[in-house]
C-alpha cells in the first residue's frame, strides 16, 4: 500500500497525504509508486512480510539483491529476525528502484552511523524504514527528508510507565483530557509521530522523546515544545493514518526546497561515471517492472 505525500509547503497539492495503496510483492505493478513520486515528490509503501519473504533464503540471487547486507543477513541466527530483515530490505530496494528506474541489484543500500538507511550515490532521495509484527513500511521522498513508523493500533502502552519516557508535560495533560477508551490509541499515535520525526531528522531514539511533542489533533500537525508552543515551521508535514484497520502509521516529511525534480530516474540523477558503475556492465541496466 502506498500513501502519497505532498510537499509540505506546496499549496498546489490539495491532499498532501493521500490514497494508501498496498504493494503485494516484488512484481508490482509499480506505476502507482512512480506516479505518486512524480506528482507529490514522496511516497509511503507498505506490504506484508509473507508477501516479501523469498521462498528460498539460500537462493543465489539473494546475495546480489541484498548487496552488502547479505553478509549481515547470513550472520543472523533467529528465523524471525532473518525473515524480517530480508523482507524489509527487499521492499525498500524495490520501492527505491521502481522510482529511480534501476534494477534492485544496481542500487546499494547503506547505513549512516546511527543506523539510518540511505541509497548510496542517490543523495537527492531520502528513505525510511519501519516494521512491526508482519507489516513492512517504507517512505521515500525526493524533496527533503522523510521518516515513517508503524505500530499496532491497540498495542498496550498506557499505564506501563511509557508516558513518563515518551510524553511532554503538554502531551500528558492533553492525553488526560481524552476519553479513556481512546487514550491508549492516542498515545500510540504520539509514539509513532515521534519515531517518524526522529527518523526523519536522523536522530533515532537518541533524541529524547520528552523534549518535543505533538498535539492530539490530526490536522495541521507540527512539532511542539514541551510546553505545547510551536517548535517547527511549515516546512514540516506530519500525518497519521490507519493501515489494514490494525496499524497506526505516521509519516514525518521535511520539504528542503529541492524543487520539483520530477525525473528521478537514476540515469538522470547520477553522473555518468556512477551510472557506469551501477549498471550491470553492459550499460543497459534493468528497470523494476
Amino acid at each position: 500500500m502506498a500513501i502519497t505525500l505532498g510537499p509540505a509547503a506546496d499549496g498546489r497539492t490539495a491532499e498532501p497525504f493521500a490514497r494508501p495503496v498496498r504493494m503485494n510483492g516484488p512484481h508490482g505493478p509499480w506505476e502507482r509508486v512512480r506516479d505518486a513520486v512524480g506528482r507529490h515528490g514522496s511516497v509511503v509503501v507498505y506490504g506484508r512480510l509473507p508477501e516479501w519473504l523469498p521462498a528460498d533464503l539460500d537462493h543465489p540471487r539473494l546475495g546480489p539483491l541484498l548487496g552488502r547486507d547479505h553478509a549481515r543477513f547470513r550472520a543472523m541466527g533467529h528465523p524471525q529476525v532473518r525473515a524480517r530483515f530480508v523482507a524489509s530490505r527487499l521492499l525498500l530496494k524495490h520501492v527505491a528502484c521502481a522510482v529511480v528506474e534501476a534494477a534492485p541489484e544496481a542500487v546499494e543500500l547503506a547505513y549512516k552511523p546511527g543506523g539510518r538507511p540511505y541509497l548510496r550515490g542517490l543523495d537527492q532521495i531520502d528513505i525510511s524504514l519501519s516494521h512491526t509484527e508482519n507489516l513492512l513500511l517504507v517512505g521515500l521522498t525526493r524533496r527533503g527528508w522523510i521518516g515513517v513508523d508503524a505500530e499496532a493500533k491497540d498495542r498496550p502502552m498506557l499505564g506501563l510507565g511509557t508516558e513518563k519516557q515518551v510524553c511532554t508535560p503538554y502531551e500528558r495533560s492533553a492525553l488526560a483530557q481524552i476519553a479513556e477508551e481512546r487514550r491508549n490509541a492516542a498515545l500510540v499515535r504520539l509514539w509513532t509521530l515521534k519515531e517518524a520525526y526522529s527518523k526523519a531528522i536522523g536522530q533515532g531514539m537518541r533524541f529524547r522523546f520528552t523534549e518535543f511533542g505533538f498535539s492530539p489533533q490530526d490536522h495541521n500537525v507540527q512539532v511542539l515544545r514541551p510546553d505545547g508552543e510551536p517548535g517547527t515551521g511549515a516546512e514540516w508535514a506530519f500525518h497519521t493514518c490507519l493501515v489494514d484497520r490494525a496499524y497506526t502509521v505516521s509519516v514525518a516529511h521535511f520539504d528542503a526546497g529541492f524543487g520539483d525534480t520530477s525525473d528521478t530516474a537514476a540515469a538522470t540523477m547520477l553522473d555518468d561515471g556512477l551510472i557506469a558503475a551501477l549498471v550491470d556492465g553492459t550499460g543497459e541496466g534493468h528497470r523494476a517492472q
Partner: protein
Amino acid sequence: MRTVEELIELANAHLGTALAPADAERELTELAGWDSVHLLRLIGLLEQVLDRPVPVDAVLQARSLRDIWSAAVTA
C-alpha cells in the same frame, strides 16, 4: 541487579519477551520480538528495580542488552 542475566529475566517477566542469556551481546535490532517500545518500558522497569533514575541518554544509545545493563548499573 548484579548481572545482565538478571536484566534479561526482568525483561522476560514484564515485557513478554523470550530473551536468552546468549542474547546479551546481540545487536538490539537483531533480537527477535524486541523493539523500541520494549526499550522505553525497560528503562521504567530498571528505575523501579534500582530505585533511582537511570541515564536515559546512555541507555537509548545502547546497542545490546549488556550495554543497557552496563549503562544502568554503572550510573
